[in-house]
């Protein structure tokens, strides 16, 4: 009954890149950074142009029919047996954990299961499949890792971000209080229960600042929008970035493409 991901595939020559709608529309530089990191590791990245959204927004709100329709329109985009890498814990979790149950008993069940079983969160893939080694080219900085709830509990990758940051010599990883507590995003939770959500993001921002972080990084754009958006509106000094953007920027060698 315990579910721990132990076995990783061997490093492939190709992967499918599933951007996720938030990366696509709001943080494309994070997606591009992820692609460039993969290419630097010698992997050919295939980007199916017809990809849209993983369906989680509808699913989390109970609108399973709409979620299924959106997902079905994309199931055929990954025909070969290459890993699918996702720059997000929550969308990765949606595909890995929820696609099988959503399609159980339907004509797409086998296909959904197959896709789920070869979906990986991108930082996890970089560390544990590519065995990436990063060289830091940036100035000293204090960074906090904000591990999203889905990265921690659905994808089980809480140790990955800190390990990758630990490879960067000039990066000091600071530890915030209550690191495992939710930042309050929760998708539509933030707008359906705004005061509770606000109390949570306020506490999270306080904790990140109290830890002495100049910036925080995360695998999830939802958390990023939430905390960084709160900090900006409340005129708090802390900044946030997608961890892929951060890792690419820090490890960029002279002459490499811009993110």
């Amino acid at each position, binding site marked *: 009954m315990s579910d721990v991901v132990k076995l990783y595939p061997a490093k492939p020559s190709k992967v499918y890149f599933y951007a996720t709608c938030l990366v696509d529309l709001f943080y494309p530089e994070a997606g591009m950074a992820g692609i460039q990191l993969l290419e630097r590791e010698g992997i050919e990245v295939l980007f199916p142009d017809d990809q849209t959204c993983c369906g989680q927004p509808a699913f989390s709100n109970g609108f399973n029919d709409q979620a299924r329709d959106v997902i079905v329109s994309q199931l055929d985009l990954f025909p070969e047996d290459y890993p699918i890498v996702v720059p997000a814990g929550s969308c990765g979790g949606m595909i890995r954990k929820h696609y099988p149950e959503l399609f159980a008993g339907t004509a797409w069940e086998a296909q959904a299961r197959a896709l789920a079983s070869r979906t990986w969160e991108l930082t996890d893939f970089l560390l544990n499949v590519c065995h990436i080694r990063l060289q830091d080219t940036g100035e000293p900085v204090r960074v906090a890792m904000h591990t999203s709830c889905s990265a921690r509990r659905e994808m089980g990758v809480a140790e990955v971000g800190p390990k990758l940051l630990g490879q960067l010599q000039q990066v000091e990883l600071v530890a915030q209080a209550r690191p495992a507590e939710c930042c309050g995003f929760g998708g539509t939770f933030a707008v359906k229960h705004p005061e509770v959500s606000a109390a949570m993001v306020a506490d999270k921002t306080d904790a990140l600042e109290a830890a002495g972080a100049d910036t925080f990084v995360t695998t999830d754009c939802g958390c990023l929008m939430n905390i960084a958006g709160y900090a*900006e509106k409340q005129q708090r000094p802390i900044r946030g970035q997608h961890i892929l953007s951060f890792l690419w920027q820090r490890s960029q060698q002279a002459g490499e493409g811009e993110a």
Partner: protein
Amino acid sequence: MTVGGHQSDVRQFHPRARAALDNPQIRANFRSAMDGLMGKRQAAFEGWDLETLRDLGASIRLRALAKLPELLETLEANCTRQGIQVHWAETGDEACGIIRDLCRARGARRVIKGKSMVSEEMELNQFLEAEGIEALESDLGEYLVQLAQETPSHIIMPAIHKNTDEISELMHEKTGTDRSGDVAYLTASARRQLREKFQQAEVGISGVNFAVAETGTLCLVENEGNGRMTTTVPPCHIAVTGIEKVVEHLEDVAPLLSLLTRSATGQHITTYVNLISGPRQADELDGPEEVHLVLVDGGRSAIYQDPELLDTLRCIRCGACMNHCPVYTRVGGHSYGTTYPGPIGKILMPHLLGLEATRDLPSASSLCGACGEVCPVRIPIPTLLQRLRKESVDGDRLRPSVVKGRGVKRTWSEALAWHGFRWFAAHPGRYRLLGWMMSRFRGLAPRRLGAWTRYRSAPKPAPQTLHELMRQRSREGRS
């Protein structure tokens, strides 16, 4: 479900949550209490293979649920053989009636109670009071809550929302004790007051943590000794339990105890674990002459109809889920307005009260999963919350909704929004067009986005989507 009492105002979740969030005392009390309980739980499980222990707990509860009707029959047979009289009640009201009749048969005017969540669910105290029978709570936290004429705010620590000063004031006002910050003095006063009551009561009512089918044994955990008093001193003991609390074998109790006490308060074991299998025997000098067991359905057999939802019935009422819930920590137990607050409340109460009455609960979660991570019997709480959200909006034509009150949250505006989502996201061309428009007209993106921008700045679409960037790239031959 009886009308009136605390169960009827569940709909007030939003205003109550807001009030709690604005109350620094409540915020502080709950934050420090939950931090303490989380830390104690973690310390208590050190050195244990916790995941294996949780697997064992889950397997024991699932085995019991798989055989539930047979185990209930076996429990009844063994209890009866040993002199425990077994009664069955479909509803909470029926159970209240059975208990009233048992009290009447003994001419009882005064009942003393040990902690029993199911009796709170049934609103037993109010029912008995209306019938002229005094029902006094003997667990210190419950006693204080009763003095204050409030309801418990946590299933294990009922008075967790009160600090010492508030309690001192309450006891002074209601029982005449001195105002004092000395917890030992306040406790000793409560001890004195309640000792009288144990001796005066004609009936003692208790809950049951586990009912063992194999040996006809009622297992009851406690720290104070009031459970022992309640089930020993009055001449009649009535035990009340939900039907799902049965376990198959006596040996099943040991792992569940290991999980229950550590998950609840971080204790390796409670001060007392009572194992009651019969009334006073012919040659014994104390113990109740009569022992009764009331088995309450109260909506549980309805939950049992659905193989996914029945996981809700694994619950052993430890409270770990609410101790770890970031929402519960901030709004406290009273915001929920239900017998069971927190995550277990959110997945259980919709079945007991219907989704109409509990419409705000399934969405009152960020699905962070902290609860599921600590549940000692591995209830997949986030999955069940999503399932109830689906039930609330009747959102799956492949798997029709079954829970009472289904569809109550389905509004034409939200359904339209998700149809709109599908209209774009299930059609790649439309989706790319939408993305293009968002990026080109990003200057016109609204600054005000309702509840989001009350606290945060609005997210700004990027000047080019990743789709666009990738198309450009492949055109340029990825240079």
